[in-house]
């Protein structure tokens, strides 16, 4: 059923040239005995139109990887190549969606979504037209004049996604965009993301710790180890497309979840034990 490859194995499947290459990326925070290696020799790639998820327990360096790929952290070793360019700062081909709610509270939905075009000096008529298009695409038509404070968490996150998509990035990079949402909203937004990704043939890299979300949305899943974050294995998800949230009730879906969880459980347990150890060490002695 699944096509599981070892981390060290180079994929040789006849496929288009990767759009995003992460090659032996290494990042350490601090020096000396207190130094923490966040990601260690991480390598994988994303091909055009592909949806890849990076999954791992808390503390596996997912967000560090997100920041490196997005160009927000540039002092790393190894290479992140976006369409052949080494990423050393935000790359115009990469659009980022953040985990935290990131709409501008002082702008209405339309102005939020049109913001990147405003920065580029796109004329008002054109930018509003394009903003309207992407607002409709994320299913927020009719809410253009609403302020973010009048929207639910899921709607605000859709505004952020529309704001990123309006720049028509070649690669959509998302860091746990649904982390703050309830499970039902998460599944429904997953449908919306799948539909957009399929409609736009959007190359997407999703960073997540949510197993069902990763399997529901992805073509491939990169499983990370707990600290230091390394690629444990890559799993190809061979579920039919177009896909909807109904897929979560299928037997194949359940098998993928169980299979990946078997790997993740070990890493999550290490993470939990580490956190407990640190808490014990920090606790006052009574």
């Amino acid at each position, binding site marked *: 059923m699944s096509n599981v490859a070892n981390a060290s194995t180079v994929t040789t499947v006849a496929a288009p040239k990767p759009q995003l290459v992460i090659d032996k990326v290494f990042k350490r925070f601090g020096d000396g005995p207190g130094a923490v290696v966040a990601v260690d020799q991480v390598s994988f790639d994303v091909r055009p139109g592909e949806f890849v998820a990076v999954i791992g327990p808390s503390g596996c360096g997912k967000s560090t990887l997100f920041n490196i790929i*997005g*160009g*927000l952290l540039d002092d790393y070793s190894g290479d992140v190549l976006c369409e052949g360019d080494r990423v050393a*700062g*935000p790359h*115009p081909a*990469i*659009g*980022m969606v*953040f*985990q*935290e*709610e*990131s709409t*501008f*509270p*002082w702008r209405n939905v339309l102005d939020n979504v049109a*913001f*990147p075009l405003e*920065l580029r000096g796109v004329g008002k008529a054109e930018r509003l037209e394009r903003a309207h298009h992407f607002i409709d695409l994320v299913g927020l038509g009719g809410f253009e004049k609403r*302020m*973010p*404070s009048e929207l639910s968490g899921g709607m605000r996150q859709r505004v952020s996604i529309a704001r990123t998509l309006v*720049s028509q990035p070649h690669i959509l990079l998302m860091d746990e965009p649904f982390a703050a949402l309830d499970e039902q909203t998460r599944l429904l937004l997953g449908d919306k993301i799948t539909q957009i990704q399929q409609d736009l043939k959007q190359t997407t890299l999703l960073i997540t710790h949510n197993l069902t979300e990763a399997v529901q949305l992805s073509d491939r899943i990169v499983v990370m180890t707990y600290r230091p974050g390394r690629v444990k294995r890559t799993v190809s998800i061979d579920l039919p497309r177009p896909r909807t949230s109904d897929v979560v009730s299928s037997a194949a879906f359940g098998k993928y979840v169980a299979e990946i969880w078997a790997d993740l459980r070990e890493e999550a347990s290490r993470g939990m034990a580490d956190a407990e150890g640190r808490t014990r060490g920090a606790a006052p002695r009574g």
Partner: protein
Amino acid sequence: MARAASPLMTRGLPIAVGAASVIGVFGLLEALLRLGVVNRYIVPLPSDVLLSLERIIVEENVLARMRETAYEVVMSGLFTILVGVPIGAALYRWRPLRRALEDWVAALAAAPLVLAFPLFLVMFGRSSTTVIVMSVITGLAPMILKTTEGFVATRPVLINVGKSLKMTDSQMFWKILFPSALPLIFTGIRLSWTFVLISVVGIEFLINLGGLGQLINDLAERYDLPGTYAAICFVILVSVVFFVALERLETWLQPSR
């Protein structure tokens, strides 16, 4: 089963209780004065104070004095914004400067600057300039501190959005940092203008010049106790209206909050 309170109850009741409390306190004071428990040569009858309100408005030219006080308040307030916001932004931008100066600015907010009025009289003479300069200094500290706080409180994710869009420093400031800091800058404006109003009236009283503060001083020197207290009540009323107006303005200017 509990029923939802009507708008009249939720909005009207607190106002009614507040008004009743004020009337109750004045009623009690009136009774204590009439019974001789409190000396009438020190505290006038609230009813006399109430009757004097009309007299001071008509005979003491209160509206012209109010205009003078308003001019000094607006000038001082505008200067606190013009000077305070850039200083607050600079303290945010240069962290060593913030570390060096933030405590001093906070100390400035706590200092009884009004006591330095002789120094300012020497520098600027007995004029509106003295009132304005002293009031600007009084209102500056909350303006600076709240502005810095506003910039510091900008959510890192919004800054990351700006970075991901490759915004220039100037775009980052005007399109993200400044709008994000605006709510606290408005709080700073409200606080500093309130400080400014208190300072203007206080200094007018001290140097016996200009608007409402001087009126209180004049009436006190004439030993017109009901008039003095009526003028004080008038200033309190103006302050309340001023404060409420600033709050409304703040809400109106920021419909998203």
